[in-house]
């Protein structure tokens, strides 16, 4: 992200949440991955419903209010719970938009449908053939369609999503590496390690050590 500029007459509310604190309080990893992948392609969400705007702003203030209430006898416990509520409320707002987007894509072009399928299945499916079969076309034609639409092949798109997913899971320190390999249906931990090394230039363990 670069060149963030506000217009002269802007009026905006900004909520900054420290990454580690938010990541430690994620109530559902699967939703978290969906939110991350969706936001990467759609960082702006237009809130058409008044109640959504109200919910988002209320959510900002409730989290900040709980954070500021340092005299509360159960400060840490309530703050952690409020962080989780915050995420669930944001995902709720995001899910409405995500589902509207999904409905549009279902009737969209082959390329759009491919991108949606990758988004849904990249946790476990890393072969172009899987997606081509879902779309009833050949893998070669799917690569051609992607190249025409984005200058990137289908296999490169799959790799990008898988890379992002692996990084996200490795950041969650209470998930063990074998568990991630199993969850993503790699045949063994050693194969997973080699795959990650090729994808991000370091092993899962090295990546975790870098995070500190």
């Amino acid at each position, binding site marked *: 992200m*670069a060149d963030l500029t506000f*217009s002269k007459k*802007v*009026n*905006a*509310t900004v909520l900054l*949440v420290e990454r580690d604190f938010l990541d430690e309080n994620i109530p559902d990893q699967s939703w978290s991955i969906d939110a991350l992948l969706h936001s990467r392609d759609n960082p702006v969400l*237009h*809130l058409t419903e008044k109640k959504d705007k109200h919910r988002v702003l209320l959510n900002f203030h409730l989290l900040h209010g709980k954070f500021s209430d340092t005299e509360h006898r159960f400060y840490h416990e309530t703050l952690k719970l409020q962080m989780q509520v915050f995420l669930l409320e944001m995902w709720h707002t995001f899910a409405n938009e995500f589902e509207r987007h999904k409905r549009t894509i279902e009737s969209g072009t082959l390329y759009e449908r491919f991108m949606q399928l990758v988004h849904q299945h990249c946790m476990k499916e890393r072969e172009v053939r899987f997606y081509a079969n879902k779309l009833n076309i050949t893998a070669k034609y799917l690569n051609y369609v992607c190249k025409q639409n984005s200058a990137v092949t289908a296999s490169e798109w799959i790799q990008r999503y898988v890379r992002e997913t692996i990084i996200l899971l490795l950041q969650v320190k209470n998930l063990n590496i074998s568990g991630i390999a199993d969850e993503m249906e790699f045949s063994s931990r050693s194969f997973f390690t080699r795959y990650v090394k090729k994808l991000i230039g370091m092993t899962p363990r090295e990546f975790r050590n870098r995070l500190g």
Partner: protein
Amino acid sequence: MNKEDKDRIILLKVLGGVPLPDDFLYRYHTHIYCHRGSIDFVFNDKPYTCKAGGLVFFLRTASWQI
């Protein structure tokens, strides 16, 4: 609460060109609701504009560091 914890969650009202903290992208997940005016930015090499009624969210990932 220690000093570092005091900046764990920050709520700001932006009117005009008030800057955000320098390290906000690296340290924070950022959520911006635009009430009026507009916000321009480049994300993953693509330009975006958020107008009134829009919500911007940058969910920081470690991949941006590699």
